[in-house]
């Protein structure tokens, strides 16, 4: 008889990390957000945010687009379809985990 796997096994290590979960949460409500906006919303340093963006981009969850406004470089970040799906799956797994532990 096969038992349903524990919800914690459905947590995606790439998304589950607190900062990366925050990045995807912000991008779930926007078509795009720029680097500065994400840094301020999440209270991170440039280096820290860059590292997490790289991890999510490598996983195919984000798309980065660099542009110039006058002479100022600007990086816009968008969630991919896979990124939005990964966030939805993570939230569902967290809810299931809470329900299981509460029940």
């Amino acid at each position, binding site marked *: 008889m096969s038992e349903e796997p524990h919800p914690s096994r459905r947590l995606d290590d790439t998304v589950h990390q607190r900062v990366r979960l925050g990045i995807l949460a*912000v991008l779930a409500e*926007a078509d795009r*957000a720029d680097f500065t*906006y994400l840094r301020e919303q999440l209270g991170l340093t440039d280096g820290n945010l860059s590292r997490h963006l790289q991890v999510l981009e490598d996983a195919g969850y984000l798309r980065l687009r660099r542009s110039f406004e006058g002479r100022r470089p600007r990086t816009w970040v968008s969630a991919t379809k896979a990124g939005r799906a990964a*966030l939805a799956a993570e939230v569902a797994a967290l809810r299931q985990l809470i329900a299981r532990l509460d029940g």
Partner: protein
Amino acid sequence: MRPEEATRALREVDHLRRRTLSERRSTWFPLVLFGVLALGAAVACEAGDDRAIARYWMVAGPAGGIATGAYAYRRSLRTGVAASPLPYLATAMAILVGASLAGALTTGSARATAPYLVVALGYLVFAWLDRHPVAAVAAAVALVAAVTVVATGPAHGCAILSAIFGLAFLSTGLALRGSERW
């Protein structure tokens, strides 16, 4: 993972989503702009015939849409967060086409008032896109007024309906202006 950690993570996700939603939407601007334009339409209704009000909206509608798009774009550059313009653009186009057809396919006083039904429905869609209950209430008020005026066909129906739309949108937009980031 402990339950309190999962609860905290969900709470943080929810908080970030709500904050981003409130910062990326600029619901007040089109409400104020189209509120003012609707009040102008009330004057046009009284000053001219059905064609005058149709001509007024053929100019004011697209101009208001372009101004709203330009405002949203500039605001996104300033705040660093943006919504996708496509659903808004599609809704605006649907309002323009739908309102034109509603005016063309009706007769009598409904020629000037039936397009407002389409506009009110369009505003319900905008409120849904912004997930903004206050804007949805303003659109619902406008829709009830439009249904009532189109169904009963009172004298000066076009001016009455334009004034109701104008006051509902303008007052809601001005009230929201204080709570939204410009």
